[in-house]
């Protein structure tokens, strides 16, 4: 310590962390138990001990450019063994919440989506968009049971005779394609800022950079495989049971994504030539079976996640944060209204079915539109942080042979 280092804490950052579940961080006395008991931490500059002192010092810039905060899966082993009750797992969770807001694009929307006080606005926005479009679409009336039986929700936004594009599809596309496109773009902007900040922090010795192919094949692809197999999640000790909720949920999302695409092709492309394909997919269709299995998996997964989170808060005193519960609330709503709308449709109660379908559209919109700023953002940020970890360990950052030698 020959030269002094002036620490310039960001007090607002510390305040944010305290509110987002990191209120215990000041208890840390740097014994480094956490870095050793962490099942995911590497031997080289392990976490989360260093993150704890950076957080205490308010070193925001260091933390948001630290891939380790994203590599943490909040197994909770550190929190269980922490001799001071400083709950490193919760603190890193709070730092992640901050990072999503920090990198969020546009920042106004990111701030909006990270504060529980804005919940009414967050709900109202899609309610107004979807509600208005429903009102002006010409479909704004409750169908009779017979129509519901034959077309399902196919006339939710009305019906026209134009054969190439159903009116309903046109409206759905008009709402969701821009929303998803915006969300993907925003996520790209956020991840790009994170990647750049991380590169700057590790300051690679080499001037060479990986090619796009190297990035995809050597860094991103193995990370995605790791995520799909839950390899790291399975290494967790204390909160091992979280895999039991997360894995069915992840698989159900993939299955539902596939089914949605199948429905699109079947109803809106094949349907052009064979109008019989327009109505609801019959229950015996393999894809419909998959969809229903996935819906059940989603609900079961969410029930487990809900129970685990509640237990974590009750038994380990984890904070009850908007960050955690907003995502749980969103996905539960998507699952319950989606599956509920289907059941009520089959039971033949059009008014309730339409109501649930409306809420379903609203919650799906929220889930994807706010994705880059909420806990859901871990999907992209963690994936790219895992890719970055591979880049960090590569010869691009640590050349085996340097120019000096």
């Amino acid at each position: 310590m020959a030269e002094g280092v002036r620490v310039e804490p960001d007090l607002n950052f510390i305040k944010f962390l305290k509110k987002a579940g990191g209120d215990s961080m000041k208890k840390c006395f740097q014994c480094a138990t956490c870095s050793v008991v962490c099942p995911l931490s590497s031997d080289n500059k392990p976490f989360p001990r260093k993150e704890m002192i950076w957080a205490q010092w308010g070193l925001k810039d260091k933390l948001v450019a630290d891939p380790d905060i994203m590599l943490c899966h909040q197994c909770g082993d550190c929190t269980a063994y922490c001799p001071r009750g400083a709950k490193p797992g919760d603190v890193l969770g709070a730092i992640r919440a901050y990072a999503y807001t920090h990198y969020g694009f546009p920042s106004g929307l990111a701030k909006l989506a990270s504060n529980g006080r804005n919940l009414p606005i967050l709900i109202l926005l899609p309610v107004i968009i979807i509600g208005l479009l429903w009102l002006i679409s010409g479909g704004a009336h409750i169908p009779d049971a017979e129509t519901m039986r034959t077309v399902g929700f196919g006339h939710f936004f009305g019906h026209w005779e134009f054969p190439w594009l159903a009116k309903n599809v046109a409206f759905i596309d008009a709402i969701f394609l821009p929303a998803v496109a915006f969300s993907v773009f925003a996520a790209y902007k956020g991840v790009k800022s994170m990647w750049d900040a991380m590169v700057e922090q590790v300051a690679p010795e080499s001037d060479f950079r990986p090619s796009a192919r190297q990035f995809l094949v050597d860094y991103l692809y193995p990370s995605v495989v790791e995520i799909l197999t839950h390899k790291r999640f399975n290494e967790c000790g204390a909160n091992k049971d979280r895999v039991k909720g997360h894995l069915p949920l992840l698989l159900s999302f993939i299955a539902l994504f596939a089914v949605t695409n199948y429905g699109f092709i079947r109803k809106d492309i094949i349907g052009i030539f064979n109008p019989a394909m327009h109505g609801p997919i019959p229950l015996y269709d393999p894809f419909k079976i998959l969809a229903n299995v996935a819906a059940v998996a989603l609900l079961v997964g969410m029930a487990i996640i809900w129970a685990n989170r509640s237990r974590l808060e009750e038994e380990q005193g984890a904070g009850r944060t908007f960050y955690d519960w907003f995502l749980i609330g969103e996905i539960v709503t998507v699952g319950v209204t989606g599956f509920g709308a289907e059941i009520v449709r089959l039971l033949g109660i059009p008014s309730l079915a339409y109501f649930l379908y409306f809420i379903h559209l609203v919650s799906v919109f929220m889930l994807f539109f706010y994705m880059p700023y909420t806990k859901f953002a871990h999907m992209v940020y963690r994936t790219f942080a895992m890719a970055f970890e591979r880049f960090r360990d590569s010869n691009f950052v640590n050349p085996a042979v340097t120019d000096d030698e």
Partner: protein
Amino acid sequence: MTDERSAPGAGGVLVVGGGISGLTAALEAAEVGQDVFIVERNPYLGGRVAQLNKYFPKLCPPSCGLEINFKRIKNNRRIRVYPMTEVKQVSGSAGSYQVTIETAPRFVNNNCTGCNACVEACPEDRSNTFNFGLDTTKAIYKPHDHAFPMKYVIDADACNKCGKCVEVCKYDAIEMDMAPKSMTLEVSSIVWATGWNPYDFNKLENLKPESSKAIISNMMMERLAAPGGPTGGKILRPGDNKEPESFAFIQCAGSRDENHLEYCSYICCMASLKQITYVREQYPEAKVTVFYIDLRTPGKYENFRDRFKDDGNVHFVKGKVADIVANDDGGVTVIAENAVTGDKVRETVDLAVLATGMEPAAKSAGAVHGLTMDDNGFIISDAGRGMIAAGCAKKAADVVTSAQNSTAAALQAIQASRR
């Protein structure tokens, strides 16, 4: 002044615990004329100090302090000592307590000369608790080499009542039919010098102490280094008796940890530094690594720590060991993060010493006797009621501090008895 002595209830002082604190409090009170009873659970006096190899910081053997105190006790007719005795019940109030005590049968009477003939005849073994189970004794045994009172004792749980010792004893010292004895003492105040137990390191599950014999506690290290210990003072690895070439001292093993003992046990840093001197005496080239959160060497002890500054084979790593892996060669690998460099450290050593802390011995029993205790089980003195804590029953402390607060406790006990 003499009038106060004859006030009602101006009885004696009961000192519970015959360790260095209890002895100090008892002697200080008795030497100003107070009647004192010492009740001690073990068959010998001296407590934890008797188990040490050396005191810090002067590195003299504990017998030097204890012998003087034993001599003072022998010469003082106001002190009555009850070994193998526990307090069963306390009734009454300040100035007049009736304390029921129960003495467990020793099965050996005052005729014992310590000739050892009985031990040679005894067929049964018991784990030697004085040496923390590192060796065994016969069912009839001498508590330890410097035991006071110097009388043998039979462990009733280990004895098979074969009577062979009775046959060989030339002095009729063994009474197999000895029964527990109960009596009630009338005292005006009670000094609780109940001391401490080493924290049970098996509770430190992440360190897996049961996985290897190379993982020992600091108190076991004292016994290994002590001349009267299981190895005759040679520091050898339990199990295979290897001469260790490398040592890891693992500080705060259970202390400063709200999952175990939330307080600092005060003595462990100095104890480990002291134990490095044991290692140095026997193994001048051995590698020693100390893993710590903060090296706490308060006050003058700072000088003691400086002794190791120039020893190239002693390394201090800031970072708590949170994992230990047993190796096939009998050694262990201890794992910590060096919080200064931020790197994970894996140190493979022949012997890992867990610096376990002090757990107050009265933790569970204290409440039974109506004592006020803090959240950690340390007794809070209530001088007004004549209930006074001394030594490590009061707080985690070194011998010097214990002797000081025991002297203070003696004064409070005298005051309480003359009110």
